[in-house]
């Protein structure tokens, strides 16, 4: 193909948008509306999931070991681990898939932390010795809170372990909520995408069908399928691109505004509500929106023009 022909088809693709401005506007509006709803919903769901994830990351399991300070039963039933053994157990815990982080806390560190909390700055007075002696522990953070049960069962099976502290209810609630939001949001996103794809491809199809006469004329005077199709496909892709870019721009502004508002208005909740930055949201939203807009513009126009090419 000659370069002049290629340039001509590209020029026609752009020109078609202005020639059929009402169709172009209707198509862009449809695509924008669908992708705006999709983007808005995704932004909300992504933040919900992020807040839950942050909450999950705070859930920990604490493991205590047998020591000479235990009662008689412990001496009999369990084994008192050496410092080296405790370190080995720590390494084994860290290797497990459900564990994201393990932090060792010696009895002295524990007392230094809890002492002031319970007894004030003069906590050491009246306690010549560390009351938490023998309470060396690991604080274990989970990568997936739904796997807490498996981890706890495994920890309890270690002979050197005296006690495992964990909250079953917190883990179950977070895990259930996470699952619920994942399913519901997945369902709604799939429905929104399906409706978007249906509406956008129909709009593209109608826009091309009303110009089937134009396609017939081109075919009668000897245009190849490519020559007929290329401007329509380019037009469809450009409409898809504009239709996707507009809601992205709008969501970008709205999201920044909402983020500032929430952070300033609910500063007290900033410890719990950990919002995603606009970059984090757009990292996913931009390729999906552009892919849906441009992709459907491309596929919709190709398949619709094909129906009219058999002249």
């Amino acid at each position, binding site marked *: 193909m*000659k370069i*002049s022909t290629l340039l001509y088809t590209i020029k026609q693709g752009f020109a078609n948008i202005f*020639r059929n401005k009402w169709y172009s506007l209707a198509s862009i509006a449809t695509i924008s509306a669908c992708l705006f709803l999709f983007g808005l919903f995704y932004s909300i769901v992504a933040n919900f999931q992020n807040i839950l994830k942050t909450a999950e990351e705070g859930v920990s399991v604490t493991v205590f070991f047998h020591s000479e300070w235990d009662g008689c039963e412990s001496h009999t039933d369990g084994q008192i681990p050496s410092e080296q053994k405790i370190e080995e157990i720590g390494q084994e815990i860290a290797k497990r898939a459900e564990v994201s982080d393990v932090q060792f806390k010696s009895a002295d560190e524990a007392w230094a932390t809890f002492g002031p909390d319970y007894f004030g700055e003069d906590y050491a007075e009246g306690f010549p010795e560390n009351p938490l002696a023998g309470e060396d522990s690991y604080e274990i953070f989970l990568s997936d809170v739904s796997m807490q049960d498996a981890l706890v069962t495994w920890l309890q099976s270690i002979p050197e372990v005296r006690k495992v502290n964990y909250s079953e209810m917190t883990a179950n609630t977070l895990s259930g909520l996470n699952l619920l939001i994942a399913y519901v949001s997945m369902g709604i996103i799939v429905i929104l995408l399906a409706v978007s794809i249906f509406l956008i491809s129909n709009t593209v199809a109608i826009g091309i069908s009303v110009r089937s*006469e134009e396609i017939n*004329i081109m*075919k*009668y005077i*000897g*245009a190849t399928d490519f020559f007929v199709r290329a401007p329509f496909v380019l037009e469809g892709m450009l409409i898809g691109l504009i239709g996707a870019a507009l809601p992205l721009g709008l969501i970008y502004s709205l999201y920044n505004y909402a983020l500032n508002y929430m952070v300033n208005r609910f500063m007290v909740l900033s410890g719990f509500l950990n919002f995603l930055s606009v970059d984090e949201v757009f990292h996913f939203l931009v390729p999906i929106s552009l892919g849906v807009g441009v992709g459907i513009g491309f596929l919709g126009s190709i398949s619709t023009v094909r129906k009219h090419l058999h*002249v």
Partner: protein
Amino acid sequence: MANKEAQRLKRERIIEENGIIFLDNVSKSYSSGSPALNGVTLSIGRGEFVFIVGDSGSGKSTLIKLLLRELTATSGSVYVMGNDLAKLKHRQIPRFRRNLGVVFQDFRLLNDRNVYENVAFAQRIVETPVSEIRRNVPAILATVGLAGKYKAKTKQLSGGEQQRVALARALVNNPSILLADEPTGNLDPNNSWEIMKLLEEINESGTTVVVVTHNREIVNAMQKRVITMKKGVIISDEEKGGYIDED
């Protein structure tokens, strides 16, 4: 290269032996109803001017669609410019049609483009260099009497002028055959005669012209070959013929 030359020679031989358009016992049936064409055999020589006449349902439109390779025959063979149209692949059809000018009753112009663009479009399809397009389009517009209207939108033109644009578009690539399907159907008598004069001039320059028409006055006055069709068969084929009244 040698193969292409052999094919060209084969096509030339077919044209020499059977004419530039040759239908051999052609029938065309649609999924329902009686056949639109029934055993039609017809030969049109290079450079001829032929009228095809007949009432609605006589098979004229089906014949034109077969010649354009918009349809394929149910049985029999259709040869146009030596090409056996049944053997033409989908991707070969555009190249075939570029040697075939076509004009319709309803003009079929691209109404969102001006006169120049409508005619230039036919040249762009065959990838004519832009410099040649700039030379050829004004020349052909001058031939059809529209030299001064190249910037006009097609909707601003009269019916006669629109048909001239369609003619210019059909002719700009120097086709071997011009098919005109009711070219005067939407025109007043004056414009109809103007168009027919243009068609006659085009024919005199060597192009084979096939005109499907209902216009009795023009057919009778022009004294050309007239093929009359009725219910899918040819009932008359006369040199310097006239319009046959079926009643």
